[in-house]
């Protein structure tokens, strides 16, 4: 369990989080639903350790590793599909293990035929699939997603969400996702927190369709 207690975060005069409390359960997909600019991404970045907060405590994050699917694909433009996934594995694995992991996850997202392609040779949906494969290939305890399916057309989005859920079922881990799309949250998540305001607050907690 991850527990955030009384988190306070401000950029100069702008208070984004104040006395903010939230819990995330193990092996569950939690969606944070709310309008753009309410501070969801800040919350995610605080959990990932990318941004500092001024006061409060976070429990259950010691020694935890993260994967992060960003709004943009954030792929290395000069590396192939393989090279991009390899990049997050090289630090911790030997060549043989890397190969096994690469094969497994590239196949899982259906990009076997595109291993040696560069990002500028792939479509937007394929690039995001590489980012998803990278996130799962990395041995993380927690997977964070920030509007990972934003800006894709409906058909593509449904396809990506399906491959995401298929991956997750084979490789369960705690997921915290941020979105402003209620349907997306309902389809993917077990728990949905509806957020709003500034400073950020939990308006409602609901169960998603994913059981």
């Amino acid at each position, binding site marked *: 369990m991850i527990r955030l207690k009384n988190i306070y975060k401000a950029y100069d005069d702008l208070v984004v989080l104040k006395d903010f409390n939230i819990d995330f359960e193990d092996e569950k997909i939690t969606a944070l639903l709310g309008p753009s600019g309410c501070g969801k991404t800040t919350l995610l970045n605080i959990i*990932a350790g990318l941004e500092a907060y001024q006061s409060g405590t976070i429990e259950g994050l010691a020694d935890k590793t993260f994967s*992060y699917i960003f709004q943009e694909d954030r792929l290395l433009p000069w590396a192939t599909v393989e090279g991009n996934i390899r990049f997050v594995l090289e630090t911790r694995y030997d060549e043989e293990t890397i190969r096994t992991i690469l094969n497994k996850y590239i196949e899982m997202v259906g990009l076997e035929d595109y291993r040696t392609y560069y990002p*500028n040779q792939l479509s937007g949906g394929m690039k995001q699939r590489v980012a998803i494969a990278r996130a799962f290939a990395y041995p993380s305890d927690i997977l964070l997603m920030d509007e990972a399916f934003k800006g894709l057309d409906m058909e593509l989005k449904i396809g990506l969400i399906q491959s995401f859920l298929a991956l997750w079922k084979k490789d369960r881990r705690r997921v915290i996702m941020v979105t402003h799309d209620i349907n997306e949250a309902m389809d993917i998540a077990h728990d949905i927190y509806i957020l709003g305001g500034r400073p950020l607050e939990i308006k409602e907690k609901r169960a998603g369709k994913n059981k």
Partner: protein
Amino acid sequence: MRPSTIPNNKKIARPLIILFWLGVWGGVSLLINREIYLPSPIRTLRAFIELSTTAEFWSSIAMTFIRVAIGFLVSCLAGVILGILCGLNRFLYDAFNPLAITIKSTPVMSVIIIALIWFQSGQVPVFVCFLMCFPVIWTNVVQGVKQVDKRLLQMAKVYKVDRWHILKGIYIPSLTPYLMAGIITSLGFGWKVTVAAEVLSSPKYSIGGHLYNAKVYLESPELFAWTSVVIVLSFAFEYLFKRIAANMTNHSH
């Protein structure tokens, strides 16, 4: 049709343009009709052929080449290492920047004369080449490091990629186009300053030394022949590196 015909025209046009300017050169030299002022292209070619039969010619080119290569490689090495460090560290950048600006604004002749006081004749051109190329490479590498996509660095941080792999996977590839631009600029420059330094320091085997002798003995055809050697070599290297640069940055955009 258009895109395919233009390169073809270019291929035909280029030799014609070169021929045209050679014609202008020949015409002007005919008008002046004094070999000392302006030898004709044919006279220059003859001087070149005569020179090329001597062993001295080839050892001089080889030695000048070695000097350029050493000076240039050292400046690349120093420029890349110090450029990365200064690009990452604000304090180091502030400390180094005035030095780079000073070197850039120093006249080449001053550098050569100072080097003549400090070093032996064979080392002067190497040092001058190094000192003139270094700031160009350094500046470009620093710029390349500062242009690195912060979002990619953030991604690497989340995935706890270690420093060495971040350097290899993010910094080096994103500064490569900047480095290549710096290399191409400073390479042409390197040839010219190295030969200039040789003119004044006159090491035993050197293109610059022969330029100096040709001037002393008023052998204008030889002067022109040696000069064209420098031009051709400089062009050849620029071409070579442009090809390498095009290959290396193929996929980055």
